[in-house]
């Protein structure tokens, strides 16, 4: 495994892996991320893993860059011995189509498929969560079938409900908070990918897999009500 270190200001170091988006590279990122986290190096404040890099934030008063690089190299060289836990697979119950996924018809038509075929293809595979970013809890996942790839909307919507599941090109994703956006919406999950009043606040982490599961509207409402009870902790 080849890694490079780049200075990103006086309090951050960028650890670069092979420059490509691929599950095997992301797996190296995950291993190294877990190894650093596990080591609890004094002065290391925070890690931001991405597709093929980790941004490491540190306190220069507590550790110098050269000392840090030395420790990281030791970790890297012993990575094979490091026992890492298996990634979690998180099931995302989703209502497809209708008001929950207003663009399902378009996605089906665009790809010459029936709506059911789109749903089946979308919910069939588990998707690797390469990283989170963009907004709190937004997952960048890979592995969606090209058979259901669909370009973004020409004109983004002003408001998309949180939990909306969409497709943009050959990517799929979930909107964790209400926000504007141009993805084709095919469904919606009642799960909160992000809830600041819950511990932990985020449902999915980098390196996990997500798998969509088709549910009915009734089930959606039922899960939503259960979540609302948890949400009430906020005012307790």
């Amino acid at each position, binding site marked *: 495994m080849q890694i490079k270190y*780049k*200075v*990103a*200001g*006086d*309090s*951050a170091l*960028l650890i670069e892996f092979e*420059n*490509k*988006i691929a599950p095997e590279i992301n797996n190296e990122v995950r291993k190294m991320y877990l190894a650093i986290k596990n080591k609890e190096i004094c002065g290391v*404040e*925070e*890690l*931001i*893993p*991405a*597709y*093929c*890099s*980790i*941004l490491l*934030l540190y306190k*220069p*008063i507590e550790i*110098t*860059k050269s000392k840090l690089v030395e420790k990281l190299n030791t970790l890297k060289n012993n990575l094979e011995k490091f026992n890492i836990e298996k990634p979690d697979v998180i099931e995302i119950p989703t209502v497809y189509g209708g008001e929950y996924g207003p663009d399902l018809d378009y996605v089906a038509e665009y790809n010459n498929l029936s709506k059911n075929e789109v749903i089946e293809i979308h919910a069939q595979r588990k998707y690797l969560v390469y*990283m*989170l*970013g*963009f*907004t*709190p*809890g*937004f997952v*960048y996942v890979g592995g969606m079938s090209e058979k259901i790839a669909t370009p973004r909307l020409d004109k983004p919507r002003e408001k998309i409900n949180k939990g909306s599941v969409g497709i943009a090109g050959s990517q799929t994703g979930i909107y*964790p*908070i209400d926000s504007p956006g141009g993805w084709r919406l095919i469904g919606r999950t009642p799960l909160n990918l*992000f809830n*600041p*009043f819950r511990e932990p*606040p*985020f449902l999915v*982490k*980098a390196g996990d897999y997500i798998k969509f599961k088709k549910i009915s509207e009734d089930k959606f409402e039922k899960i939503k009500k259960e979540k609302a009870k948890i949400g009430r902790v906020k005012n307790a």
Partner: protein
Amino acid sequence: MPKLLVQDSGPLTTVQDRGRFGYQKFGMPTAGAMDKFSYKIANLLVGNKEEGVLEYTYNGPKLKFEQDAIIAVTGAKSEVKLNGKNIKMWQSQYIKKGDILQILPSQKGLRGYIAFKSGFNLPETMGSKSTYLRADLGGYEGRKLENGDVLEINNEVTKKNYTFKSLEKAYRPDFSKNKIRVIMGPQDDYFTKSGISKFLEGEFKVSNQADRMGYRLEGPKIEHEDGADIISEGIAEGSIQVAGNGKPIIMLADRQTTGGYTKIATVITVDIDLVSQKKPGDLMFFEKIDLKSAQKLLNKRKEIYKSIKKQNRELTDSKHYNIKINGEKHEVELREIIQ
């Protein structure tokens, strides 16, 4: 609980602390004070370690105190009025019940800070009181202050709790400076030689698109060798992104955690505060320095912080007596030492 009433909030006044850490890997921006030096000093002057303070923008708030309080105002240079009379910035101040504090529009710099001894009685969201406006969370109901809001301060104070503290003049920041020091990289090798020299020799103006998230700058076009896109990666505070249009953006407190544009350089930590004090239309220049020098400058700050903490045992209130000993008149000053 001691209260204060927001009579006039100013255009953008939010509760901020050092920021929300540990969640950037989930895409959660840190938020936090934009000018961290002024923030930290404000807290130290009132004897706090890390507490939520008010960060105001250009126009400060007008506050009515319904209880005694100990405060300090730092950051952008403004006239600060207590019941209509000028008081000094960069020092602790005792406020009596019924007092009205008003901060006039800034003359130099953009953001000011008001710290209150013992801090606000506000819940922490994910370990921080910082307001993150884009997700409506933290601070005061996840939003900026509005006229009529009532803030609660944690503990009541009396004169006994007051220690006069001030930041030495030599340590006070000069917000008219416009040289911003940077460390090159992590993607400076994506730019042409001419692009790099334009960046380091050119003059840049803060555009109207400048907020807590980042500052877009106007200036000479910084050319890329071969495109502006990279595979998305984490973004450090102070990173200077250059998108395909060749215009730099300095990423600040509310920045997104990851991004796919090349970063030509990173503003050194101590100068991020200076950037945060710039307004649209202000000019800046970039100067390259090395990592060691930048870290030295950062570590020097700890010394300044320590110097304020030491003022803890400073002498405070004094009383004057004229006494006679053996027929001889003596003027005596009595002071109370507060730890």
